[in-house]
């Protein structure tokens, strides 16, 4: 018996990226922008989406795919604010969503009746950076209760993101967090980042974000 070597040299992410390309094509064909919300746990992704649904639900059709390691608590929270579909993906221990899960989840979403799709990824600043889901762009949430140096600690996520949404700005007077320093650190990692400031508990704290959603939603049939 002899040992034979088979040269492969294939990217391990190749299959995921192939499915992500298919997801991207499905979304493009339907004209639906899709944003992948990524952050550490507890940064406020679900609350931001709850407020977004409450404020914009009457003017545009927003579908959401949520990923959680266990439970569909986030999906249940969001479903209370909309008649549109909130699709829960329980990853059963996996620390990120992958393109296959999004491809499957989209089977249950009526894309022709969707103006904007949000994917709420698993709270984790490491793994979701490496998995293309076929989204239009990644949006990293960054709460002011975290350290300003988060982008230095998790550079890949901040390199992959197009926007950073600062959350919990209402807590700024109570925490030692310099917004300008955080912006500088993030820009040093990724000079093309754009920033949005939010405070989901402040009546006017959502204006900038809601404007962003309105600007990016598909111009579909009015609800």
């Amino acid at each position, binding site marked *: *018996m*002899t*040992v*034979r*070597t*088979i*040269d*492969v*040299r*294939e*990217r*391990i*992410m190749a*299959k*995921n990226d192939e499915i992500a390309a298919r997801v991207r094509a499905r979304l493009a064909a339907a004209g639906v922008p899709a944003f992948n919300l990524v952050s550490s746990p507890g940064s406020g992704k679900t609350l931001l989406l709850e407020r977004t649904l409450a404020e914009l639900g009457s003017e545009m059709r927003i579908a959401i795919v949520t990923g959680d390691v266990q439970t569909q608590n986030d999906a249940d929270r969001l479903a209370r604010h909309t008649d549109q579909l909130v699709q829960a993906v329980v990853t059963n221990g*996996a*620390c*990120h969503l*992958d393109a296959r899960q999004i491809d499957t989840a989209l089977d249950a979403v009526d894309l022709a009746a969707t103006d904007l799709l949000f994917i709420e990824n698993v709270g*984790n600043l*490491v*793994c979701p*950076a*490496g*998995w293309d889901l076929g989204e239009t762009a990644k949006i990293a949430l960054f709460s002011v209760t975290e350290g300003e140096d988060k982008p230095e600690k998790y550079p*890949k996520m901040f390199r992959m993101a197009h926007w950073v949404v600062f959350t919990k700005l209402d807590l700024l007077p109570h925490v030692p967090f310099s917004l300008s320093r955080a912006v500088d650190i993030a820009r040093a990692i990724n000079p093309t980042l754009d920033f949005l400031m939010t405070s989901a508990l402040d009546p006017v704290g959502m204006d900038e974000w809601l404007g962003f959603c309105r600007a990016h939603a598909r111009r579909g049939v009015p609800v």
Partner: protein
Amino acid sequence: MHEMSVALEVCRMAEERLGQDASRLVAVGVSVGDDAGIEPENLAFCLEALLEEPPFEGAEPRILREPGDGLHLSYLEIIDDDSSND
């Protein structure tokens, strides 16, 4: 942190290529870039566990470090039954 997901994908790729020959796999070479966000020892541990299970029969994971952020299934080593080549 997602080493197990990567290990599962490596095994899927190996099985896809080898089919019924998967049981003859003796080693799997995986190239891991220094900036790939993968902990090599953890990946080797996950692969070792998975390669013990059918259709594999205890193949050895070999982690190859390289510069950059690449992550590749580099090679598969299988035992050839020489009698079938006669």
